[in-house]
C-alpha cells in the first residue's frame, strides 16, 4: 500500500511536471526549442544556412506563415517535397504551443536577403516578378508581403522557391493560403519559374 501510494504520488508529480513543462514551452525559449527539436540540423544554427540546397532559409520569416506551415506539415495538410518524409516525423515531437514559440522566434530574427550565390541578377526574373502579379501579394522584391500570413521571399533558397512554385502550380502543395496563389500559376512556365527563383534568391 505504501509503495502504491508513493507510486501514485510520483506519477501525479510527473504528470504535473509534464503539464507544467508543456505550458512552460509556450513562454519558453524558441531559440532553445530550435536547437532541442533538431531544427538546426537541417536549417542551420542561424536559421539561414541550411544543410543543403533546396532547404528553406527561415530566419526573419513571417511568424504567422511559419506557424501555419508547421501545423500543416505535422497534420499532413502540406505534404510536398521533403515535408512528409523528413519533417513530419520531426514535428511529431513538437506541440502546437512549441510551434508558436518557434514561429515567433524565427519571425523575430533579422531577415536574410543578402545575395546567396553568384551576384544579384536583375532580369529577366525581376521583370517576371513585376508583371506576373507576384509583386502584388509578396511585395516589392518579395520582401513585404501584403498579409502577415504570406511568406517573404527575398533571399530565399533558389531551389526551394522554384520547387514551391512548381508544387503550387501542379497542386502537389495546396495548404494554407495556396488557394490564393494557385489561380495565377498558369501565368508562368517552368522556365520562367526558374528565372523568378533565381531573381528572388539573389535579392539583396
Amino acid at each position, binding site marked *: 500500500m505504501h509503495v502504491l501510494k508513493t507510486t501514485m504520488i510520483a506519477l501525479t508529480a510527473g504528470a504535473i511536471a509534464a503539464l507544467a513543462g508543456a505550458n512552460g514551452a509556450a513562454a519558453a525559449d524558441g531559440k532553445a526549442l530550435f536547437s532541442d527539436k533538431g531544427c538546426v540540423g537541417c536549417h542551420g544554427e542561424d536559421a539561414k544556412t541550411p544543410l543543403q540546397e533546396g532547404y528553406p532559409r527561415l530566419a526573419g520569416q513571417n511568424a504567422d506563415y511559419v506557424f501555419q506551415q508547421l501545423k500543416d506539415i505535422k497534420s499532413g495538410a502540406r505534404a510536398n517535397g521533403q515535408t512528409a518524409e523528413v519533417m513530419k516525423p520531426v514535428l511529431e515531437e513538437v506541440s502546437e504551443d512549441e510551434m508558436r514559440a518557434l514561429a515567433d522566434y524565427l519571425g523575430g530574427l533579422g531577415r536574410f536577403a543578402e545575395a546567396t550565390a553568384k551576384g544579384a541578377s536583375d532580369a529577366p526574373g525581376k521583370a517576371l516578378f513585376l508583371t506576373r*502579379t507576384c*509583386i*502584388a*501579394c509578396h511585395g516589392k522584391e518579395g520582401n513585404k508581403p*501584403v*498579409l502577415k500570413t*504570406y511568406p517573404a521571399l527575398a533571399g530565399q533558397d533558389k531551389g526551394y522557391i522554384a520547387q514551391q512554385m512548381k508544387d503550387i502550380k501542379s497542386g502537389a502543395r495546396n495548404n494554407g*493560403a495556396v*488557394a*490564393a*496563389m494557385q*489561380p*495565377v500559376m*498558369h*501565368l508562368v512556365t517552368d522556365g520562367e519559374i526558374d528565372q523568378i527563383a533565381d531573381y528572388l534568391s539573389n535579392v539583396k
Partner: protein
Amino acid sequence: MKTLMRILAVTAVAAGATVITGTGARAASVGEAGYVWNGAGGEEDEALGLKPDAKAGKDVFEVCSACHQPEGWGLSDGTFPQLAGQHYKVIIKQLSDIRARNRDNPTMYPFALPSQIGGPQAVADVAGYIQTLKMSPENGKGDGKDPELGKKLYADNCAKCHGASGEGDNDKFYPRIEAQHYAYLLRQFNDIKAGKRRNANPDMVKQIHDFTDRETHAVLDYVSRLVPPKEKVAPKGWKNPDFQ
C-alpha cells in the same frame, strides 16, 4: 420546477441563437434559406450613399492595377476580368461582397480589405475612377464556332436582364457583360450555375440551370464578341497615362 427548467432552457437557446446569429455569422448564400440577392445593409449601402472622388480613386486603383492592369482590362485569358466599362453600382457591390466574403475570391481578398484600400469612401472612389476607363479593343473571345446558337440563346435567356447588347443595367446591379473575356465569363457562368458563386442572383441560377456545355460555350462566345459603343472603347495599344 419543470416550468422553471423549461423557461431556462428556452432562454438559453434564445441567448445562444442570438450569439450565433450575431456579429460573427456570414450572410446566407444563394440557395440557402433567407438569402436575399443584393440585400440591404453593410458597406455596400454605405459606399453607395457616398460621393465618389475619381482622383482619390486613381490612387486606390493602383493596388488593383497589379492584376487588372493599369488600363483595367484584366487579362484576355480570363484570369482577371476587365473592369473598364463596368457599372458603378456593380463594382461597388462586387467589391463589397468580396471583402465581406459573400463572394469567394482568395486571390483578391487581401486587396479588397479596408487595410489595403480603405473604407466605404475608397470603394466609392475606386468605382468612380473605373468609370473613367475605356474598354479593351481586344478582349478574349470564344472559338466563334456556334454563332447562330449563341445569338438565339442570348436573346431568349440573357437579354432581359443583361440588355440587348450585353450592356447590363447600373440601377439594377446587372453587370455589363459585352466584350468581357470569354474564359472569365465561362468561369463565372459555371460557378453561378453550380451555386459556387454565393452572391449570385437566384433568377439567373434558375435561368441557366439546364444549359448544356455546347450551349454554354455558344452563348458566352457570343457575349464575348458583342461590341460596346465606339465611345466606350480605347484605341489599340492605348496605355493608361495615369500610370505611366
